[in-house]
């Protein structure tokens, strides 16, 4: 069972709806036992970074442990941003530090938030994008972005006047700045791919 971490932020239900639509079962939970026993974790998030980190509270330590134990983890939007070291959204907040980089505001001179469908170039070596071709539109809604400095991370970019990281993959840690649960068929495929990654990882163990 894949566990979607329930930590009282918006749109968690959308993630569950989309997962169920792609015909794999997920459980919404914040129980440590369920999280430890999961084959993979999804860390969703519609919230300001500081609010999300506070809402996650003590769970963040557990999520970090589970992620470091090589269980697949998929961060979405603010859940993606929380994978990094810190964010400067409404103050300074520490993230999980699983991928090196900082979350900073999108440079001015363009419409902010970056909201809508943007084209992401999909590197062939990123598992989340298998079966999707070279590029695809995904739905974004954010004002801050992850400035990734981790040389172990593979990165997919979107163009917003500069190359903005749209997705990272570092070993078993996956993250997408956009919302796969809200990106139509291409987004559903990503969730399906993640479920497949979880299944494969679990079979190996």
């Amino acid at each position, binding site marked *: 069972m894949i566990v979607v971490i329930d930590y009282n932020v918006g749109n968690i239900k959308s993630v569950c709806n989309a997962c169920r639509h792609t015909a794999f079962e997920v459980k919404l939970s914040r129980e440590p036992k369920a999280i430890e026993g999961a084959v993979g974790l999804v860390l969703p998030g519609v919230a300001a970074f500081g609010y999300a980190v506070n809402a996650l509270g003590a769970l963040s330590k557990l999520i970090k442990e589970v992620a470091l134990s090589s269980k697949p983890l998929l961060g979405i939007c603010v859940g993606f941003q929380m994978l990094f070291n810190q964010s400067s959204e409404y103050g300074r907040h520490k993230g999980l530090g699983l991928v090196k980089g900082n979350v900073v505001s999108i440079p001015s001179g363009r419409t*902010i*938030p970056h*909201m*809508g469908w943007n084209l992401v170039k999909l590197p062939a070596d990123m598992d989340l994008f298998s079966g999707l071709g070279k590029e695809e539109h995904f739905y974004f*809604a954010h004002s801050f972005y992850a400035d990734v400095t981790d040389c172990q991370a593979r990165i997919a970019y979107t163009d917003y006047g500069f190359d903005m990281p749209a997705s990272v993959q570092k070993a078993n840690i996956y993250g997408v700045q956009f919302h796969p649960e*809200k990106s139509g068929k291409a*987004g559903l495929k990503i969730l399906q791919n993640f479920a497949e990654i979880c299944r494969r990882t679990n079979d190996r163990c």
Partner: protein
Amino acid sequence: MLTKRIIPCLDVKDNRVVKGIKFLNLRDAGDPVELGARYSDEGADELVFLDITATIRSRKTIIELVEKVAENVFIPFTVGGGIQTVEQMDTILRSGADKVSINTAAVEKPKLLTEAAQRFGSQCVVLAIDARRLQEQQDRWNVYVKAGSGPTEIDVVEWAVKAEKLGAGEILLTSMDADGTNTGYDNELNKAVSRAVNIPVIASGGAGKPEHLYDAIVDGGADAVLMASITHFGNYTIRQMKEYLAGRGIPVRC
């Protein structure tokens, strides 16, 4: 580069989608769950759901309906209508909405925009403005509240600028003069607001043919175009509208 968004709007009353002209003379347009699923499937870029009755009594019914619509909608889904507090926004978001749209409550208590942005992030906070052109000054518009029934003295452009500072992440700008007329958006209004703010502006009210969408984007500077009767009553499909826009060089998601 971001694509321009095509957004069908479901005005919902008594569990049915309805559509009127200039906010009056409502006509039935179908079942919200079916229409939502259809638009999501057909390539709409987003969906807006407005509870136009917005009474406290119907709140629970609306939440249940939002949940049902959300089960089959895999594109961004905005819900609005009578939302007054951050707690209500939280409930709506937890029911499957991705953004909440507020209008009257923000006018009455502008701080609500800030509270919402700090809690959910500004990308979640849509300020809906219902605008009506002043008779005596043709290049000015006043804000209306309470589903168009409550005039205010507030200037639309000033309110939009203030709302951006307070935390609104997007402006859903409806021309009450053009609503339901199918004669085109009020692009002077769209231009006045889109020039004054940096956040995305969704043009609303007046779409009757794909050319109107093009005009709202090019002349009005809109980042997205919202429509209801033009798609509900089967005049044009989402695909037809997108093909038209793409043919004229507008970036759209196909």
